């Protein structure tokens, strides 16, 4: 068995000795040129005059390109064709590329780019939700609305109504390897591009359009990224297209990597949101109706914002059944970087909204928030559930049972009509509250807080239910290409990209499993648009689900052909042929895999196959907000404890206990890494990672010196991560579950634990915005005290 083993990352040995190559490490031909964008310094207006003379005269400069020099399409947008590579004279954000410098070295290009003299006619930028609403500056004609029932009527009759607002900041991806691309011109005008990209097919598409070529003339290769997190889904297009255009113009290879400040300044981030809520509930905290208004700050171009905002709506329920609900989503066009995909893709923002509601409601009714959360859960799935809190007793009369069944069925329906068939959080929560000692610790925290004036502690439990599949249904497809060579070695290729998440290793484990081979026999090759075409981005946590299946199908096709050939040779049935332990057994005969491969080749059997997979059972109408957008849900649960210094607002995460659902894990070690890293990244988003734009719309936090990413000492020292041992009910690859994005949302518990600690300082509700920086925590402490 190679599947389910905790094997190291596929390139671990090359990472630890420095031989793993990223784009900037690929040896380049002599004469390679380097690029840098010259960027706008204002956030809205028009360029009135440009003097590029000093740029052209700078040392090492070979060429300077503006929009007028672009031979074909001036666009790098993933969807809407609204994002010029180089500005046509209109400026939409501070940092927007205006011209492109091509120079002999990276530093020469950078130095030259600073020398342009540009005059602008400035306009007042749109930078806040209020400004955007006042100007009706938005994508799509108006807000999208999903939901069910008459919310106003339900709120009017609810015993209690709790309302509020939360501001949720954006997040810089800070993939440790910045954006990078390299274009190598070929004979006949063809182009080869190496990109640090989650979406090679889109790079191919955009480069082809920019060069006026069909897609077959452009080949894009991605061996690995030094982190992606969604930030390399569309944001790498500009670099790849710039390199290709410059390579075409000069006939020389061209490379571009953003310096970290440029990366911060030019690329989009996680969408900042403001969420307003009105929740009707009873005295126990049972939700009766919720009205959400989500305001997504999208930045200047559409990018992936519609799908991001949709997913925020689709996670406005998280784990909770809300009888009557309305979710209104505004996608606001502002003069910021174009905000983009980031691990969770809007889901985390939607989830913070409802978690905030439950925290607020629990505070209002004076109950333990964990209990209020559980009270509102979707109905637990029937078979296989650990606890069955809602089942009827054997003595109940039959009509009672069917009424209960109907009630349960109703308690499974999401605001968008999908039935949650696999809800397991009841059981997971029970287990986690027990293993983490939640109730005992809750009492201890209360005791501590009663005795200590300065340091207050906070404890919070939060669940995660995350929908798996691209909500754009057609993206849920994948291809693979597998070769078995005559010496029995196997080469593997698929459309997924490796960004550290361990996809390549998991998929190789699947392939090795089919052939009964050790991992060393399977060669993982770089993602390549010439091998597998028309791929989707490696995103939406779908990498292993989609590519694992496609690879398995390709391997099974080859194994099937081998089995048929060998069976015939030995008068056996193909189904009796076994692939195990590097051998192929046919009845009493046994071949080494290499002998079998060679025999098949000599017998003129094709040992190469493609595999193709598309996710079944999904359909979605994003305008009406109805359907079954998700193949299944992935779950997680966490208890976090924090300590807050009430004199300064500073805090620490003391402990985190996580129970996560990865189905039957393809590789528990890799999945554990995703959970740990996701939690810390999610906690960083909601605590210290603060993006600050000034009144002129310039991003002032554009380096790690001013933008605080969690360091080793910020992660909790007590960090218990366990997996829920149950296979996926949906038929996924080896019944595993996607694990890339869901753990990020475990970080929400840290924000809620901070809220709990602040609430211990006074009678008011903390109403903490995110990121809950020490400054914000201190202000909240003052607020709750002031409420006395």
């Amino acid at each position, binding site marked *: 068995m190679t599947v389910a083993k*905790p094997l*190291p*990352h596929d*390139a*671990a*040995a*090359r*990472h*630890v*000795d*420095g*031989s*793993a*190559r*990223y784009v*900037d*490490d690929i*040896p380049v031909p002599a004469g390679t040129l380097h690029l840098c964008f010259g960027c706008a310094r204002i956030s809205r207006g028009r360029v009135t005059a440009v003097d590029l003379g000093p740029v052209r005269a700078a040392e090492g400069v070979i060429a300077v390109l503006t929009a007028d020099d672009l031979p074909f399409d001036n666009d790098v947008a993933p969807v809407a064709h609204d994002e010029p590579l180089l500005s046509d004279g209109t400026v939409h954000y501070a940092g927007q590329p205006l011209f492109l410098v091509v120079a002999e070295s990276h*530093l020469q290009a950078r130095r030259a780019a600073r020398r342009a003299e540009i005059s602008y006619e400035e306009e007042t930028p749109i930078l806040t939700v209020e400004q955007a609403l006042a100007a009706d500056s938005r994508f799509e004609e108006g807000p999208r609305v999903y939901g069910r029932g008459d919310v106003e009527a339900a709120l009017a009759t609810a015993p209690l109504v709790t309302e509020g607002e939360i501001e949720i900041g954006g997040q810089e*991806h*800070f*993939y*440790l*390897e*910045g954006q990078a691309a390299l274009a190598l011109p070929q004979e006949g005008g063809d182009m080869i591009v190496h990109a640090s990209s989650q979406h090679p097919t889109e790079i191919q598409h955009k480069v082809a359009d920019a060069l006026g070529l069909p897609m077959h003339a452009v080949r894009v290769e991605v061996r*690995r*990224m*030094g*982190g992606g*997190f969604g930030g390399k889904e569309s944001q790498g297009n500009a670099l790849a297209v710039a390199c290709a255009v410059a390579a075409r113009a000069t006939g020389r290879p061209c490379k571009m990597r953003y*310096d*970290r*400040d440029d990366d911060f300044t030019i690329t989009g981030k996680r969408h900042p949101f403001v969420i307003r809520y009105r929740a009707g509930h009873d005295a126990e905290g049972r939700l009766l109706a919720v009205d959400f208004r989500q305001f997504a700050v999208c930045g200047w171009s559409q990018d992936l914002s519609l799908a991001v905002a949709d997913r925020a709506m689709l996670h406005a329920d998280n784990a909770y059944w809300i009888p009557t609900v309305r979710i209104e989503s505004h996608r606001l066009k502002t003069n910021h970087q174009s905000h983009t995909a980031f691990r969770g893709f809007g889901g985390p923002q939607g989830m913070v909204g409802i978690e905030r509601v439950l925290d607020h409601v629990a505070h209002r009714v004076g109950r333990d928030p964990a209990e209020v959360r559980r009270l509102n859960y979707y109905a637990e799935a029937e078979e296989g559930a650990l606890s069955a809190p809602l089942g009827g007793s054997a003595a109940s009369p039959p009509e009672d049972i069917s009424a209960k069944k109907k009630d349960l069925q109703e308690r499974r329906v999401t605001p968008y009509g999908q039935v949650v068939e696999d809800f397991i959080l009841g059981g997971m929560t029970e287990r986690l509250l027990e293993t983490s000692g939640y109730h005992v610790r809750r009492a201890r925290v209360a005791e501590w807080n009663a005795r200590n004036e300065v340091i207050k502690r906070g404890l919070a439990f939060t669940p995660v239910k995350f929908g798996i599949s691209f909500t754009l249904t057609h993206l849920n497809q994948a291809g693979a290409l597998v070769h078995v060579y005559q010496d029995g070695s196997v080469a593997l290729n698929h459309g997924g990209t490796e960004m*550290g*998440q*361990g996809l390549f290793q998991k998929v190789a484990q699947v392939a090795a499993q089919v052939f009964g081979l050790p991992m060393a026999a399977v060669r993982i090759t770089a993602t390549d648009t010439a091998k597998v075409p028309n791929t989707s981005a490696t995103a939406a946590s779908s990498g292993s689900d989609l590519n694992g299946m496609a690879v398995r199908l390709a391997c099974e096709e080859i194994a099937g052909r081998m089995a048929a050939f060998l069976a015939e040779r030995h008068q056996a049935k193909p189904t009796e042929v076994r692939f195990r332990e590097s051998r192929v057994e046919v009845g009493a005969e046994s071949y080494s895999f290499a002998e079998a491969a060679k025999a098949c080749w000599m017998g003129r059997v094709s040992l190469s196959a493609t595999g193709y997979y598309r996710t079944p059972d999904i359909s979605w109408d994003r305008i009406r907000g109805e359907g079954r957008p998700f193949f299944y849900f992935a779950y997680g649960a966490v208890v976090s404890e924090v300590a807050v210094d009430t004199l300064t607002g500073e805090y620490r995460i003391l402990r985190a206990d996580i129970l996560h659902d990865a189905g039957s894990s393809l590789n*528990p*070690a*890799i999945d*554990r*890494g995703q959970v*740990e*890293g*996701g*939690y*810390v*990244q999610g906690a960083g988003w909601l605590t210290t990672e603060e993006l600050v734009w000034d009144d002129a719309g310039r991003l002032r936090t554009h*380096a*790690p*010196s001013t933008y605080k*990413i*969690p*360091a*080793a*000492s910020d*992660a909790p*020292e007590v*960090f*218990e*991560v366990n997996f829920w041992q149950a296979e996926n009910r949906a038929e996924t690859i080896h019944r595993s579950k996607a694990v890339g994005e869901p753990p990020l949302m475990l970080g929400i518990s840290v924000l809620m634990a901070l809220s709990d600690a602040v609430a211990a300082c006074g009678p008011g509700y903390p109403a903490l915005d995110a990121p809950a920086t020490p400054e914000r925590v201190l202000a909240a402490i003052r607020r709750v005290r002031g409420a006395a």
Partner: protein
Amino acid sequence: MTKVSMTVNGEAAEGEVEGRTLLVEFLREELGLTGTHVGCDTSQCGACVVHVDGKDVKACTIFALEAEGAEVRTIEGMANPDGSLNVIQQAFQDHHGLQCGFCTPGMVMSAAALLAENPKPSEHEIRDYLEGNICRCTGYHNIVKAIMAASGQDVSRIAAE
């Protein structure tokens, strides 16, 4: 342009550099030692850590000329003499102390410097020492564990596999 010479991973290395050429550029571009990564360009992330005369230094904060005559060691020079992974490298692999791997060379170099000065660091000391090394992927837990393991300490307490 000025001539610079130093010993890199035990071998003599020399080249022509500008006064403002950073050590990291010299290593990556002149010597082709691309295992030393540039993550931030501004001495924050630690992806570029190398050893200069045995001390851990961010190669983006020092000029190549400042390393004139020095003994420089990079990630490419960390393996055992027989070419096998050294104990720290092996521990990072065995304990899954990496995901995208971009921070890894710097982490290994910092860990080596720490263990040279403090062969049995506590978990707290490790976290403290890594303050200048950012990892965006792992959440640090497995990195800390790998360093504990490399120092010969029991890591079963830190987390089960």
